[in-house]
Every structure is written in C-alpha cells, then in structure tokens.
C-alpha cells in the first residue's frame, strides 16, 4: 500500500499543477466580473507557444529554453486573452460567446501555425521539467517521500502562485477593487474605480495563468503539442473554480481532489491493493462528486454577482 501511495502522490501533484494554475486564472477573470469559458483555448495557446519555443531553442540554450518556453506560454496566453477582453469588456459582447470563440479560434490557429511553422501539427520537446529530490527536505520521514522526493518543481511554482493570488486578491487594494468590479461594478465606479481597466486586468491575468498552465501541460506530462492538448483541461479547471467557490484555497482543494482522483483512477490497475475496486468508480468519481457538491452547496456558493454581465454605465 505504501508503495502505491508514494507512487501516486508525486504524480497526482504533477497532474494537479497545470489544472490548478488554470483554475486560478479563471478566478481572477471571474472575480473581475468576466466569465472566462475560453480557459481551454488560452491553455492551448500556451501549450503551443511553449512547445514551439522549447523545441526550437533547446539545441542552443539547453535547460534555459524550458523556462523561456514557460515565460513565452504565459505571455502568449495573456496577449490572446485580450481578444476576449476586447470583445466582452469594450464591445460588451456576450462573455460566453466570446469565450467560446476564443476556444474555437485557439484550437484552429495553433494547429495551423504548428503545421506552417514546423510542418507537423505535433511539436515534440526533447526535455521538460525533470522531477527531482528537494535537498534536505526529502530526507524527512513520511513527508519526504510523499512531497519532496521525485517532486516536480511545477507544483511548487503553482502553490506559490496560489499564495500570491490570495494575497493580491484579499490583502491588496488592487484585489479589493478587482473583486468589487465583479460584485457591484456601479458601486465600484462611483467610488472612482475604473471598471473597464480592472476587468481588462482580470482577463489579462487569467490569460497569463492559463497560458502558463498550458506550458506546464507540455513540460510535465504531455511532452508534445498536438491537437490532443485540447482534451478539456480548461473546462475541468472551470469546474474546479466553481467547486472551490471562487476562492483560492477552495480552488486549491478542488484541483487537488481532481488531480488525485484522476491519478488514482489511472493507477488503480497496477496495484494489488486497488485492483479490486471497479475502475469506473474512480473515473467518474470526481465528476459525480462535483455535481453532488454543487447541489448541496450551491445556495451559499454563488459566484461573483456581476460575473457574466457587461458593464453598462447607464444601467442601474
């Protein structure tokens, strides 16, 4: 049993990393009052950019290329998300429609670009983020093998992002203003907050984080960009966002929950202790649990009140 646990935990954490960072991206956007269905597409843009960047520069830059690729992924996600911001904030288009447009555009444009730039829709990277033993900490009994041996740096980066996000959203004036724009933009506006600007900021940050999530997909478990990158991780992140009640710690819990459920489901066939459990149980578990949780808690789990509504100064 211990064998199984030490195998599962590091992998589950690695799988959680991209999911969590994308969900945190969604958090920023929705907290500012813009529903972001386009997370999947932004993730795909990031995945494509990082794969392309790493595969073209690895030969000359070595491991630096991986970090460069992640930075490029974040940036490209941010830039691409401005399309969504322009349509839904400036042009006051329906946010769900423009988010969907982002998804469709992204999955088409990345494959097109991949093909015209490299000749193939699949871009493979030679090396991603390699798991390592954290010096010192990995020697701690119990905790060491679970969290610090064979650990992927991605999860530590993402946890840091969660911490920073919480601090920004709940301890800085910027966060208060951002949340105000998602709850009651008219009140925020009357207090001198530039709603348009705040919403642009929210969407842009969500693009950066979702793009980074795409970069992590490539550098942790997928290893290549292909049309299969669009397999619904962005939507799972949205589910984690709702399940986590639009709160960084809740989102962290929800993402870990999904990550573990998925990894245990995959791994269940390999270990005697888990073999007896029916696989369908694990595979459907996270989704069933989400529905149940939503039914039970939806009363007091309402999202940001103004999310989904374009801001109209004249409307009261």
């Amino acid at each position, binding site marked *: 049993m211990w*064998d199984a646990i*030490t*195998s599962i935990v590091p*992998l589950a954490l690695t*799988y959680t990393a991209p999911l969590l960072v994308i969900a945190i991206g969604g958090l920023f956007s929705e907290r500012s009052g813009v529903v972001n269905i386009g997370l999947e597409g932004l993730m795909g843009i990031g995945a494509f950019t990082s794969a392309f960047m790493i595969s073209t520069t*690895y030969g000359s830059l*070595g491991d630096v290329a991986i970090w460069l690729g992640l930075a490029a992924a974040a940036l490209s996600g941010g830039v691409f998300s401005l399309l969504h911001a322009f349509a839904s904030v400036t042009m006051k288009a329906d946010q769900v429609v423009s988010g969907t447009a982002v998804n469709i555009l992204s999955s088409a444009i990345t*494959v097109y670009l991949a*093909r015209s730039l490299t*000749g*193939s*829709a*699949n871009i*493979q990277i*030679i*090396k*991603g983020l*390699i*798991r390592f033993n954290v010096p010192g900490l990995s020697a701690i009994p119990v905790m060491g093998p679970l969290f610090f041996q064979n650990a992927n740096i991605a999860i530590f980066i993402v946890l840091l992002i969660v911490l920073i996000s919480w601090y920004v959203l709940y301890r800085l004036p910027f966060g208060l203003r951002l949340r105000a724009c998602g709850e009651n933009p008219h009140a925020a506006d009357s207090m001198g907050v530039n709603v348009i600007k705040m919403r642009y900021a929210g969407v842009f940050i969500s693009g950066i984080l979702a793009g980074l999530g795409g970069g992590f997909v490539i550098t942790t*478990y*997928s*290893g*290549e960009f*292909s*049309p*299969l990158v669009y*397999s619904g991780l962005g939507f799972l992140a949205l589910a984690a966002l709702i399940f986590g009640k639009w709160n960084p710690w809740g989102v962290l819990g929800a993402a870990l929950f999904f990550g573990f459920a*998925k*990894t245990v489901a*995959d*791994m269940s*066939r*390999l*270990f005697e202790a888990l073999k007896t459990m029916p696989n369908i149980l694990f595979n459907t578990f996270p989704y069933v649990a989400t529905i149940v949780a939503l039914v039970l808690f939806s009363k007091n789990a309402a999202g940001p009140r103004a999310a989904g509504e374009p801001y109209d100064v004249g409307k009261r």
Partner: protein
Amino acid sequence: MKKIFTSVLLVLVMVISVVAAGCSSKESSSQKDSKETSPAKESVKVGMVTDSGTIDDKSFNQGTWEGILKYKNEKKTIEEKYLQPSGEQHTDYVNAVNDLVDSGYKIIVTPGFKFETAINEAASNHKDTTFILIDGMTHKGDFKFVKHDNVVSVFFKENESAFLAGVAAALSTNTGKLGFIGGMEIPPVQRFGWGYQAGVKYANEKFGTKAEIVDYLYQGSFNDTAAGQTLAAGMYNKGVDIIFHAAGSVGIGVFNEAKQRAEKGQKVYVIGVDVDQFETGKISSGKSVTLTSAMKRIDVAAYDYIDAKLKGKFPGGEIITLSLAENGVGLPENNPNLSEDTIKKIAEVKKEILEKKITVPSTKEELAAFKK
C-alpha cells in the same frame, strides 16, 4: 457610420474573392503546364480519407500518406489529395469518400478499421472507383465479410512484429520485469499483445532468459497521454524496465515518463509501435529510450496496392494479410539500443518464423496453446 462600415466590408470581401480567384486560376494553369511538359500519360488521382487524428499523427494517417507520396515522387504518375472528414461517424466517412469520387479520384485509400462499413457502402455505390482499405474488411456492421471486386482489404500480422519485440525485450531486460500497455482492446492491438507474450515466452525457453510480463493492461483509449505517463510511472516504480506500448498517444505519455527517468540516468526503455519511434524517444544527451519498434508497414501497403492497381494486377475482393514474409511488419533496420548479440538472436528467430518453424499465435486460444 454603419453604412460606411458595411460598404468597406463589402469592398474588402470582393477584393479578397478576386484575389483568391486569381490565385486559384494561376494554380490550376500551372498544374496544366506541368502536365503538358511531363511526357507521362495522364496522372491518376489518388485520394485518402484520414482516420481519427490528423494527417501528421506520426502513425496511421501519416504512414498511409507517406506511402502515397513516395509513390508519387518515384513514379510521378499519380496526383494525390487527402480529406479529413468532419467527424468520425459512418456518414462522415461516406461523405468524405463521395466528395473525393465526385472530384474525379479513382483510387481511394482509407486507413483504420473505422472505415469498414463506410467503404462497404461506398464500394457498392461507386463501382468504378478502387478502394484500398487498410486494417479492415468491408462488412455491413455485422463483421461478416462482404466481397467487392473494387476493394482490397489489407490486414497485418501484428503478432509477428510483436513477437520479435518480445524476444528483444526478454534479451535486453536487466530486472527481468516487462510491461505492456495497450490502447483500446481491439483486434490489432490484441494481436500486438499476444505476439509480445509469445515472444517473451519463446526467448525464455530458447535463450534461457528469465523475463516476465508483470503488468499487462489496456488503458481504454488512444489519446489519454496523462494516463499513459501515470501507468508507466507505476510500472517503472515496480521495477519494470521495458514497456511495450500499442496505444497511440497514450504511448506518448509512456515515452515522456521514460525520458524523465532516462534524463536522471535510470535505465528504462520503451518499445514503440506502428512506426519506428526512435526519434520520439530522444533525450537531451542524444540517446533514445526506444529499445526498438514493432512496426506495421502501412506505407508499404498503400504503395504496393496503388502500384498493383496501376499495373492492372489489383487483387480486388481479396483480404490480404501482410506478414514478415512480405516485409509488411517487422522491427526497424537500425536498433542502436540493442546489443550485437541480441540483434543476431532476433535475426535467428526471424529466420525461424520465415521458415515456418515457429507459428506465432494470432488468437487468444493459440496463445494459450503456445504457452503450454
């Protein structure tokens, strides 16, 4: 304001369409030129419809397409085009085939068992068109073969290439533990698995190796890369050092896990499938985690039957199974990760199969008998 905007838009559309029309007419005229200049007789149009996945999937579709391109580049007597159907249902495939037929394509190549019913319908509707159905046979949905004189159904003896891969794995393992990850549990994948089991067993008997397949499972899809990595990690943790995957993109996850470990100096390997996956397994030091690959020469099949049709020797209505003997399956020519000795022994085994001293099991029952 609005009016101005609309009119500008209209003008733009018109300009673009004129330019586009100009381009296309140029293209067609240049094609005509090339036809006129080439002394060969009029080229035959060869079309392909892709299976799930894209044309550059490094697997089935790409293999087929490469076979067609190779034929074109060598003989210059065909004109090629592929269509990606709008979906993966029977009607999507039929529509794609109809589109090709309507635009004058005389030979249509389709890779994958999903085309079976669609080609069955298309073949009776278009008697003048020739179909090459790779990895499937025409039937009405009940898996009872329906004969069409304009269709050749091509199968592969996956079990034979997997048998050789199994021998290679048994001879190369250090821990004595081997793994197998299949995609969906469908006949071609199963044959890979059975052949692999038989190969390991044979090597144990003949060469005295002590290899055992400790994990043998089907992931259930061809596209869950994350699950592939998780499964591979679990197996490697248990001491398995060679995993044979027959699982499409699930296998990409397997490769990813093996590469992670190889970067840190661990000696783990993957056996690739369908095509030579040596490049897929490359790590930063330039080495590869690909031990060898159990190949299925889809490109050879496409090439050979286009050739047969154009030379008037098309085996219409037949089901053909390509094996080691026809070079339709097998291991790659170069296997840098196999030792000299292993390569020699594999050649021996291959010879025995070709001389029919070994019959590689191709069904579950035959495998059970083989194992006794």
